[in-house]
C-alpha cells in the first residue's frame, strides 16, 4: 500500500490540467466580403424572419431565426443553443454573409458562408421589400473551425419574426454570458458586451463593484479568482485595490482589463445598439454613486438619440433601504429583485423575480397593470425558456443563452 501511495503521488505531479478554449474560427469577414457594400437598415430588417432549414439541419435544426443584431446578422436555433454570427455585404444585387457558427452547449464551432442571390430574393431585400413565404432562399455552406469539411446550407423564408405588443427584453447575463461557456471574450468585459447583440441580446446585465479608490468597476465575484481572471498574484477582492493597481496587474480570462463602469457604459452607448442595461449593484458600491453615473449616461444617450434604459439593480433589502434613504430616490430607474412591497416602495421600473418562483402570471399582471415591467432571471435551460415564453407574461428574460431566448421568442 505504501508503494501505491508513492505511485499516486508521482502520478499527481506529472498530471496536468488543460483548460478548454473555443476560439472563434479563423475567418476574416472583412476580407471575405471585400468589395461588397454595406446593407441598408431597410435591407437588414427585410431579411429578418423565421426560415425553414432545408439543408444543414445538423447545425440549425428544422427552423431557424434570422435576425439583424446590431451591426451583424445572426441565425438562432434551438439545436444545442446554436447560433451563427455573420457579417454581411451586397454585390451585384446579391447579399453575402461570412462568419462563424457555435453550439454553445458544447465546444463545436466553425465557419459559415452564405448568400442570397439576386433572383432568390436578394434584389427585393436590397430594396427593403420583405419577401413572401418561399421568396427568399439563403444558400451556403458551413465547416469546422479550420474551414474544412463543408456541408451545404439552404434556408427558405417562411414567416416574419414574432413581435409582441411591447419590445421583449433579451438580457444577456454578465455582459453576454459566462466564462464557463468559452465565449470569445471574458464575462463582464467591454469586449464581450460588443458581441452580446450577435448572441441575440438586446440588453445586458453587468456586475458593479467598487475599487479601493472609489471607482465602480465591473467584476462578478466577491474575491478575484481564476474562474474570472488570469493568474496575476493579486489575492482579495477588487475593493482591496485601486483601479490603477487593477489595471497594472489584472487581466480577465481572455486577457482583457477589468472595465470601469463608465468605460462599459460608453462602449454600450457608442459601439452597440443595445437598449437596456441592468447594473447589478454589489454591496460595496453606493446606490447614490450609481444614480449619478446613470443620470450622466442617460443624458449622453439622449444627446446621441439612443434608446437606452439603464436601471440600477436592487438585489436585496439592504440596497432597497439604501435607495430609500436618498432624497430623490424616485428619480432613479431601479430594478427590484425582492418582494412586491419593495417594488412599490421604491417605485421600481422593473420587478425581477428569480425564475424558480415560476411564471407567477397573476402577480406579473398586477405589477404590469401598475405600469411596471417584469423580467425573470436567470433562465438557462431550453425547456424552461420555451415554457416561460409560452406560458408566462414577462417583459424580458435574463439568460446566459440569449440566443435560445431569441429563438423561442421570435418563432412564436
Amino acid at each position, binding site marked *: *500500500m*505504501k508503494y*501505491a*501511495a*508513492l505511485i*499516486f*503521488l508521482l502520478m*499527481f*505531479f506529472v498530471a*496536468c490540467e488543460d483548460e478548454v478554449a473555443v476560439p472563434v474560427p479563423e475567418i476574416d469577414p472583412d476580407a471575405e466580403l471585400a468589395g461588397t457594400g454595406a446593407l441598408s437598415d431597410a435591407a437588414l430588417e427585410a431579411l429578418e424572419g423565421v426560415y425553414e432549414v432545408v439543408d444543414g439541419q445538423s447545425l440549425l435544426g428544422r427552423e431557424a431565426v434570422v435576425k439583424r443584431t446590431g451591426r451583424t446578422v445572426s441565425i438562432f436555433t434551438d439545436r444545442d443553443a446554436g447560433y451563427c454570427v455573420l457579417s454581411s455585404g451586397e454585390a451585384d444585387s446579391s447579399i453575402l454573409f461570412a462568419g462563424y457558427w457555435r453550439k454553445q452547449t458544447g465546444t463545436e464551432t466553425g465557419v459559415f458562408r452564405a448568400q442570397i442571390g439576386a433572383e432568390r430574393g436578394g434584389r427585393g431585400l436590397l430594396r427593403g421589400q420583405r419577401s413572401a413565404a418561399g421568396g427568399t432562399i439563403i444558400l451556403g455552406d458551413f465547416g469546422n473551425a479550420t474551414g474544412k469539411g463543408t456541408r451545404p446550407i439552404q434556408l427558405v423564408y417562411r414567416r416574419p419574426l414574432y413581435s409582441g405588443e411591447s419590445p421583449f427584453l433579451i438580457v444577456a447575463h454578465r455582459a453576454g454570458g459566462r466564462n464557463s461557456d468559452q465565449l470569445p471574450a471574458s464575462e463582464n468585459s467591454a469586449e464581450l458586451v460588443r458581441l452580446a447583440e450577435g448572441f441575440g441580446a438586446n440588453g445586458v446585465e453587468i456586475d458593479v463593484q467598487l475599487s*479601493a479608490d472609489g471607482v465602480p468597476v465591473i467584476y462578478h465575484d466577491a*474575491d478575484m*479568482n*481564476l474562474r474570472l481572471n*488570469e*493568474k*496575476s*498574484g*493579486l*489575492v*482579495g477582492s477588487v475593493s*482591496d*485595490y*485601486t*483601479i*490603477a*493597481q487593477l*489595471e*497594472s*496587474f489584472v487581466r480577465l480570462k481572455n486577457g482583457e482589463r477589468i472595465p470601469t463602469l463608465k468605460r462599459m457604459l460608453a462602449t454600450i452607448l457608442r459601439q452597440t445598439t443595445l437598449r437596456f442595461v441592468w447594473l447589478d449593484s454589489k454591496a460595496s458600491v453606493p446606490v447614490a454613486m450609481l444614480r449619478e453615473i446613470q443620470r450622466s449616461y442617460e443624458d449622453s444617450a439622449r444627446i446621441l438619440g439612443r434608446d437606452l434604459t439603464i436601471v440600477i439593480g436592487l438585489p436585496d433589502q439592504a440596497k432597497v433601504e439604501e435607495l430609500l434613504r436618498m432624497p430623490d430616490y424616485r428619480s432613479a430607474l431601479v430594478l427590484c429583485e425582492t418582494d412586491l412591497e419593495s417594488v412599490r416602495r421604491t417605485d421600481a421600473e422593473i420587478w425581477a423575480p428569480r425564475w424558480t418562483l415560476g411564471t407567477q402570471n397573476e402577480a406579473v399582471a398586477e405589477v404590469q397593470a401598475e405600469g411596471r415591467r417584469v423580467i425573470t432571471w436567470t433562465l438557462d435551460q431550453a425547456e424552461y425558456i420555451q415554457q416561460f415564453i409560452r406560458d408566462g407574461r414577462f417583459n424580458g428574460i435574463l439568460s446566459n443563452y440569449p440566443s435560445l431566448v431569441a429563438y423561442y421568442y421570435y418563432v412564436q
Partner: protein
Amino acid sequence: MKAPAFIFLALLLAAGPAHLHARPSRVEDPDRPRGSSLVLTLGIGYARYVMPYDAPFAIDRNGVVASGRLLWHPDHRLRFGVESGWTRFYTYELRGVETTFGATDASLSLSAVPLLAVFSMQIHDAITLFAGAGGYFVRSHATSFGTTVDVTRFSQGWMAAISWDYPLTEGVGVGTELKWYGATEFGDGVLALQLRVPLAVSGW
C-alpha cells in the same frame, strides 16, 4: 487538486493499520520501551514554484521556504500534528505597464503561510511520508505607480512530503525533506527541498 490530497491521505490511513505497532519513532531509541513523544521539526530550504503561469513576462519561480511542524509520535507509526511556516511562491517585475493612467513599473511578490493538519507515517527506518490538509494565508505584496498594497486571503490547500532522517542523539536528528505545498484556490504550489532538524521536545 483537493481530491488527490484526500485520496493520498486515505491511502496513508489505509496503509496504517497493518503497521501501526511495527516500529518505534525514528528519533527515539529503538530499544527503549515504546511511548509517546512530541517532535518539533524545523526546516529551511529552497522552493520552486512549479505551477503553470501563462503570461507574456517571466516570473521568478525561486524562493525560500521555512517550516515548523509539531507532531505527536504515539506508540505506533501513524502520527499527527500541525505545520506552519512561510514560503514564497513567486515574484515578478514589470517595466512600463500601459494603463489608462499612463505607464508604470510594477512589481509583485506572492507568499504564503501554511496552516495544516498533518498526518505522517514512517515507511522505512529513516523514511517518513507526510500528508496534510488545511490552508494557506496567501499574501500579495504589489507595487505600482509608487504605491504598495498588501492583501492576505485564506486559501484551502494541502501538502505532501517525504523525509529522510539521521539520528544525531536520542532526541535530535538531521535530515532532508522533499515537500509539496499547494494552495488550491489560486492554483499556486511549490516543490521544496529542505534541510530538517527533528527535535523530541517531550516524551512520556
